């Protein structure tokens, strides 16, 4: 491990990679602050840039920086404007915005910055401990287990990612898998489902799909219904927090960093769930007087979601780096970028290319430090960015999505596909279909079919499911994950008839 650390330090401290961390954090923070643009759109837009750099460590460092920078930046707009930039920081506005209204915006931003820093750093330490352990376990996995693991991952995403509607999330996952089968697979050497169209021979473009699923609908939603940005234009001063306040939030930050990390590791449960759960847990275990404060500007209520969402962000890298299975839309995009750079994340990553793995972890420490330094003194100025006129912002977002799709394929038909998919995605978003499962299914589809086919060939048929107990166990877990939420929802409906919801 020490050796790995040194390799990581060496790679992460090269001039190029340091610049990447700083650039990623800056871009992420700025765009994350803009309400309505989530980390997935930003990363989708950044992918062509990252891929064309050619160096997988640098690309992953840049994209990871954008990711946690966006979560960090989202908290600024949550606190100052009550308009969360990303879903993972919605819970931060519960107490952050009341604090800002009471004229304590500076203090709120400081607490958010410190809590995020602590969450991110503790998360990175945990990642350093758990990822190697998990990946050595994963090395004994067989293609049958990999297949089953992907089924578990996809079912977990379907079960948790949607707004409680498992069937819709299931449809989107399966649609993604179906789209992944279009084109010429490596395994069979024959084109499938291309309907004779030459352009479909190589399948759908991953970047095009990512842009169409996330960036375009978000931009169109911003056009349709402009978010109200009437914020408190008051002076941001008094960034200091007192010693007693620091003492009050320290245990909260510690607890929520741990909890957030482990929630982030679970597939389907990302920064958003971690932050809401962190907020709820801290409210429940607080004393009576403190509970009164929650929702009215409690420092604990702000520190909890802030550390939880950053830790969860880091936690979501565990399944990506050790199993090669993304647990969220954002990590799915990262996986796609890595595959495009000829790196296959998985248990062999740490053995074959340790510099990538360790450099990313090291860059997380640097990145969190950069964000802390960046945010504490510059907060008042950064807040001015929020006044970027939307008249320019939206054409530029659209232009960058077009450019990304074009650079990836160098093909103008790809742009028409992008617009077409974007319109479909917007319609799906209107109807409350979650979009992330589609992209995750699309990215995992190829790998899943490969592992499935390998297992089928080795066991000469479907027998691997019952001949390998671990595979069977995983598939049973997957089935439970899909069935349980609808069962629970049905029971909750019966119960809700008379009793009020306890939150």
């Amino acid at each position, binding site marked *: 491990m020490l050796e790995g650390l040194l390799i990581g330090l060496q790679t992460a401290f090269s001039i190029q990679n340091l610049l990447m961390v700083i650039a990623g954090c800056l871009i992420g923070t700025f765009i994350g602050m803009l309400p309505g643009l989530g980390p997935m759109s930003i990363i989708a837009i950044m992918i062509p840039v990252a891929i*064309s750099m050619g160096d997988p460590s640098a690309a992953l460092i840049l994209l990871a920086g954008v990711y946690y920078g966006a979560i960090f930046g989202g908290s600024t707009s949550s606190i100052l404007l009550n308009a969360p930039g990303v879903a993972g920081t919605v819970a931060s506005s519960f107490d952050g915005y009341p604090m800002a209204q009471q004229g304590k915006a500076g203090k709120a931003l400081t607490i958010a910055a410190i809590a995020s820093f602590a969450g991110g750093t503790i998360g990175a330490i945990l990642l350093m401990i758990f990822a190697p352990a998990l990946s050595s376990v994963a090395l004994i996995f067989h293609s049958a287990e990999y297949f089953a693991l992907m089924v578990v991952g996809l079912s977990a995403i379907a079960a948790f990612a949607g*707004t*409680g*509607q*498992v*069937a*819709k999330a*299931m*449809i989107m996952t*399966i*649609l993604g*898998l*179906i789209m992944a*089968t279009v084109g010429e*697979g490596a*395994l*069979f050497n*024959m084109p*499938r*489902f291309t309907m004779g169209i030459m352009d479909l021979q190589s399948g759908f473009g991953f970047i095009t799909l990512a842009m169409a699923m996330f960036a375009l609908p978000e931009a*169109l*939603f911003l*056009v*349709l*219904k*402009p978010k109200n940005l009437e914020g408190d234009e008051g002076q941001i001063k008094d960034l200091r927090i007192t010693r007693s306040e620091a003492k009050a939030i320290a245990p909260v930050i510690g607890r929520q960093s741990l909890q957030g990390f482990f929630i982030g590791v679970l597939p389907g449960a990302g920064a958003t769930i971690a932050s809401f759960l962190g907020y709820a847990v801290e409210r429940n275990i607080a004393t009576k007087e403190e509970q009164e404060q929650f929702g009215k500007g409690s420092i604990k209520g702000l520190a909890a979601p802030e550390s939880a969402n950053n830790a969860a962000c880091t936690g979501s890298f565990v399944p990506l780096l050790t199993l090669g299975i993304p647990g969220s839309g954002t990590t799915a995009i990262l996986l796609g970028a890595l595959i495009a750079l000829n790196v296959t994340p998985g248990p062999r990553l740490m053995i074959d290319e340790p510099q990538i793995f360790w450099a990313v972890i090291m860059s997380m420490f640097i990145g969190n430090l950069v964000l802390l330094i960046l945010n504490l003194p510059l907060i008042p100025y950064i807040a001015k960015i929020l006044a970027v*006129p*939307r*008249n*320019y912002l*939206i*054409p*530029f977002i*659209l*232009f960058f999505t*077009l*450019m990304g799709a*074009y*650079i990836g394929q160098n093909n*103008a038909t790809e*742009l*028409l596909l*992008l*617009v077409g998919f*974007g*319109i479909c995605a917007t*319609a*799906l978003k*209107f*109807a*409350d*279909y979650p979009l992330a499962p589609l992209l995750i299914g699309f990215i995992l589809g190829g790998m899943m079919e490969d592992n*499935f*086919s390998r297992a*089928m*060939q080795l*066991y000469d*048929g479907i027998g691997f499911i019952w001949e390998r107990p671990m595979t069977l166990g995983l598939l049973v877990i997957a089935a439970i994950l899909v069935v349980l939420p609808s069962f629970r*929802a049905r029971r909750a*409906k019966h119960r809700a008839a008379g009793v009020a919801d306890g939150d």
Partner: protein
Amino acid sequence: MALDRWIALILLGVCLAYGYAAWFTMDANLAPFMRRNPIWPSTFPKVLSILGIISTTIVLLGFEKSEASEPDVDYRRLGEYHLGQALMLLVLMVIYAICLRPLGFLFSTSAFIILGAYTLGERKWHIMLPIALIAALGVWYLVQQVLGIYMRPLPGFIGV
């Protein structure tokens, strides 16, 4: 019928067509030696088509009751939003896609940004023009010179 069930109906159609191809037409020209394989190119799609048909049917028939959530943008009140602007921007994107090659990158891009901003209600030409030109030139420089991807800068009848 609500929008989500209409979409489920469409997707059910997609799954049925996909399933038909997987079950009945795909295996016709499979090489004889491949038929001895336990896995065919159509095996995985067959499984997917069944799962897809089941899950779309669940949504279509409304087996899974959804709580009425408060959506960010409600499609039932689409008329109250800036629908015209959104449609206009989509049209602009299509025009951009068609014009990018024949008219060159610089012209198409600056026109796209200017018209996009105009659609959204911007009228300050003295800001719009320089921003669009600088952005177009800057991105072209980055893509062409730094990333090394060729993009035709000028219309076909002027330069290369």
